[in-house]
Structure formats: structure tokens, C-alpha cells
């Protein structure tokens, strides 16, 4: 943890401040989460919402109760001796997955693109604990990662108009789970029986930023 990150502060309209790290690696993500948690704990006057993302944090505030300058000063103050969110997540959620077949129609083609067998893709994908780096795109859609280098694959050249709910997919060094039927450009390698989002629950999403995730292959699908 000796490396220090550079942070850029940008006004985001009159009622929000964007704080971006100069990288989007795991360390930047851990700092963004720790900063969100610290600011919420402070109950900074006028702060309305925090939106942590891969390597950034968006702060929405009441412009009649505080200014960009006041919020930036507070954040710089916090960053001076802030510890990043723990490297080992305090909560690890197991996500059962049926890999391949009709539930993972892109498993074979993704494996081919990666120069691996389908079993190797499954072994790598289910072989370690990842982090929920952010939730976005749709309610409850987790960006989970980072994936091992061997699974780095660009998005599909042609996105699908409809990806089935609960599809587990990979792209751009990350893996995600579609909480409902949505358009999408990631490679679908499997499907989980778990419900990712329920607006009647608080919190509404199964996963929260900073959670650990382990994918567990189910017997019906391709085995590692």
C-alpha cells in the first residue's frame, strides 16, 4: 500500500462533485469505497448520495447547503489518512452457476477466443474470490473482478438485444450478472438460480460494492 493515487476533482453540475483516480485498478476501487463509507459516516451537511464506481466516486449534494470547495476540502482531509477498503472482503457471497449449454451460450466461443478449453474457462472463473467493484448499468447489476489475465476478452462485436435474467457474463476484465432481461454485449458463460435484485427488500440488491464473490459450478453444467 505504498503507492499513492492521484485524484482529480471535477464539478459535475452545481449539485455534484466527481472524484476520479488516475487508474481504475483494485486499489482505486478500494479507496473509492472507503471514501464513500467515511463520508456517509460523517453525515457531511448537505451530502445527499454517494455513487462509487470502478475508480471514481460521485457525490451529490444540496448546493444551498454546501459547495464543491467545501466538499473537496473535506475529501482531501479524509484522503490524507484514509485506509482503503479491506483487500479481503469481510463478506463473501457464493454464487452457484450452471456453466455452458443453453444457459451459457457463449462459453465455447469465448473459450476459443481466449485460446482455452471451456473447462479451463470455468476453472479460472470459479477459481478465486473476486470483488464487487461497483453496481450500475441496471438496478443490481454487479461489476465483479478483476478477472485473471487469461480471461481478458473484449465485448462481443454485436450486442444482444435481450440477455436472459440471471445470466453470468464476462467482458473487459470483469464478470457481471444480469439481474433481469436486458440488452447486453458481454459473453454469456452461465446462469445462476439466484435473484440479484428485489425492490421490496432493503437493500434491494443481493450484492453490495466491496462484497467478495465466489462462483460455484453446479453439477448440471460444464465442470472445471
Amino acid at each position, binding site marked *: 500500500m505504498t503507492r499513492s493515487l492521484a485524484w482529480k476533482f471535477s464539478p*459535475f453540475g452545481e449539485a455534484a462533485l466527481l472524484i476520479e483516480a488516475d487508474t481504475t485498478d483494485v486499489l482505486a476501487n478500494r479507496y473509492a469505497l472507503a471514501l464513500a463509507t467515511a463520508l456517509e459516516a460523517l453525515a457531511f451537511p448537505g451530502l445527499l448520495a454517494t455513487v462509487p464506481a470502478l475508480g471514481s466516486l460521485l457525490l451529490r449534494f444540496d448546493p*444551498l447547503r454546501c459547495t464543491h470547495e467545501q466538499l473537496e476540502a473535506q475529501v482531501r482531509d479524509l484522503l490524507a489518512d484514509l485506509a482503503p477498503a479491506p483487500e479481503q472482503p469481510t463478506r463473501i457471497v457464493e454464487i452457484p452457476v450452471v456453466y455452458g449449454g443453453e444457459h451459457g451460450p457463449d462459453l465455447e466461443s469465448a473459450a476459443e477466443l481466449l485460446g482455452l478449453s471451456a473447462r479451463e474457462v470455468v476453472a479460472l472463473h470459479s477459481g478465486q474470490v473476486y470483488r464487487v467493484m461497483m453496481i450500475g448499468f441496471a438496478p443490481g447489476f454487479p461489476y465483479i473482478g478483476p478477472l485473471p489475465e487469461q480471461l481478458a476478452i473484449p465485448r462481443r462485436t454485436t450486442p444482444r438485444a435481450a440477455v436472459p435474467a440471471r445470466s453470468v457474463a464476462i467482458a473487459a476484465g470483469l464478470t457481471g450478472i444480469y439481474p433481469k432481461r436486458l440488452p447486453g454485449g458481454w459473453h454469456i458463460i452461465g446462469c445462476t438460480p439466484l435473484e440479484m435484485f428485489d425492490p421490496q427488500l432493503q437493500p434491494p440488491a443481493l450484492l453490495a460494492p466491496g462484497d467478495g464473490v465466489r462462483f460455484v459450478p453446479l453439477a448440471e453444467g460444464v465442470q472445471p
Partner: protein
Amino acid sequence: MSGTLRVLSGALTTVQDLGRLGWQAYGVPSAGAMDTFALAAANRLVGNAPDAAGLEITASASFELSAPTLLALCGAGLGATLNDLPLPLWTAVLAPAGAHLVLPGRGRDWGARAYLACAGGIDVPQVLGSRSTYLSGGFGGYAGRALRAGDVLPLAPAPHDPVRLAGRQWSAAMRPAYSAQPTLRLIPGPHVDLFASDALETLCAQSWRINTTSNRMGYRLEGPSIRYAAPVSLASLGVLPGVIQVPPDGAPILLMADAQTTGGYPIIGVVIAADLPLAAQLLPGDALQFALTDTATAREAWRTHCDWLAQPLPNDPDTEQLAWSGALPL
């Protein structure tokens, strides 16, 4: 006096309040009224709390009231009539039982969305702290969807004596500068440096047309192409209504109430909150312009917006007198 509101017709009517803030970190958009000013004004006129739910009526609709109801229609007029008589806008009106409220649609005037508040508010359950409908998520509001003919919406009991409040009006001097082709003020965004040097100038020099694919999530804008300085790949970051993001095709997208919580396109500017009600009153095919401003001006504009919403609303003396004399029929 808590009756029901029966939907007779409607192109796109949704139950909305001021939106749900606080679940963005879980990917939940704020939703809520596109024109929060008009909804807030309508709620105040009928004596509701600021977070009461009303209806956002896009394009056209009609309704029937089961009981005498104090209501106010703000924002676009959409040719509204109550029992075939023109309904005064920005005014608390006491409608008799069985009244028909009809909004046939926009004429030559400005305005796409009318906001209807009924005393008490639309009584639907809160979801994640709000009664707003989030259409693409399918939750909130009435069964998570736009209203259909035959839907019956319960109204909560009126918080104040409706007769006393009838006739109250919202001063025309204390409304946003609504127009058919508004100018939206923007603050340069966090990624201005990623765009070609003339991009902001191009954005503010032209009139933009709202593309037909636009909706409550955002407006795609047709006009000259806004270019990056070099190819860009950004990590997803938090966004909010008012953000103008530019995908690689160069056609800007203005994010609106139902916008996703995160986006990955460079952001050239953010429309100031006080001007979002102007944007909210546009439909596909309408035109808009942008102008540069700064945060100090934006903050003052927002202060004015909030002052207008907090203006004293004296009761109408004529109504008051009628109420005392018992002459006002319910």
C-alpha cells in the same frame, strides 16, 4: 373526502413523486417527475406534503373522479378541461364528484407533460422510499407501469380542509421560463479535455432536435457531430439527470429522470438543475439549445427555484368568504 381517480385513457401517464435518492450505489435510478417544479407546485397548491405522489401526464389522458376532490394541474396545459370547461392551470380547483378531467393534448403552446396533484396524494405503496414509477425496472408507482384505462387510483385523505384552499393560484412570475424551444444552461463537464477543442462551442452554437428514440431515460440529440480529440475508453462512472454524455457516434445524449446510475461515455457538460424542468417539457421532434454558465450562477438559479417553491400561497379571499357562509356546494 378521500376518493379515487379512475383512468379513462392516456398515452403515457405515470405516478411520480420527487424520486428516490439513496439507492444509486445499488444501481437504482432516482426516477421521479421529469419536471419536479411543476409537481411540487401542484402539491403545494392542494396542501400536500412536498413528497406526495401525483401524476405525470405525457401527451394526453382523461380521468374520472369518484368524490369531490381538490386538484391542481401544473406544467403543460395539454388543453385540459374539467366537465368540458377549460381548467385553470396552476390553480387549486375543487372538482365535484363524478367530474371528468380531460387532457386532449398539446396545441400550438409549449409543453409536453402536465402534473396533476390531488389533495392527499395518490395512495400507492412506497418502494425503496418513493412512490415514483421506474418504468424499465418495472417497480414503484402503480404496479410498476404506466397507467391504463380502467385503473383506479386511491387518494389518501386530504391533509387540509380542501374548501379553504380552493382558488389558490401560483403566480406566473414564479415559474421556470418554459418555452417551446428552451435554452438549457450547462456547466462544462469533467471530460471536456477529451473532446475536440471546438466541441463545447459547437454544442452551444446550434439548435438540437430531440430524436424519436428519446424517453424518460434520456434525449438523443440530432445536430452536428461532437468529436473526441482522440479515441476514448472510459471506466463506468456515476451519472445523474442533466448529464450530457457523448457516445462515439458524436450524437449527444441528455440524461433525464430515469437515467441509469452509471455511464461510460465522456461527459461534455451537465445541465443545471434549475433548467431541467424546461427540458422536461419537450417531446421527440422538439428543439433545444445550450448555453454555458458557471456554478455560481447555477446555484443562484437553484436558490430562486427553491424560493419560488416556498412562496407564500394566500388563500383566495372569495373562496374563504363562500366557505364561511356555507355557500360553496360540495
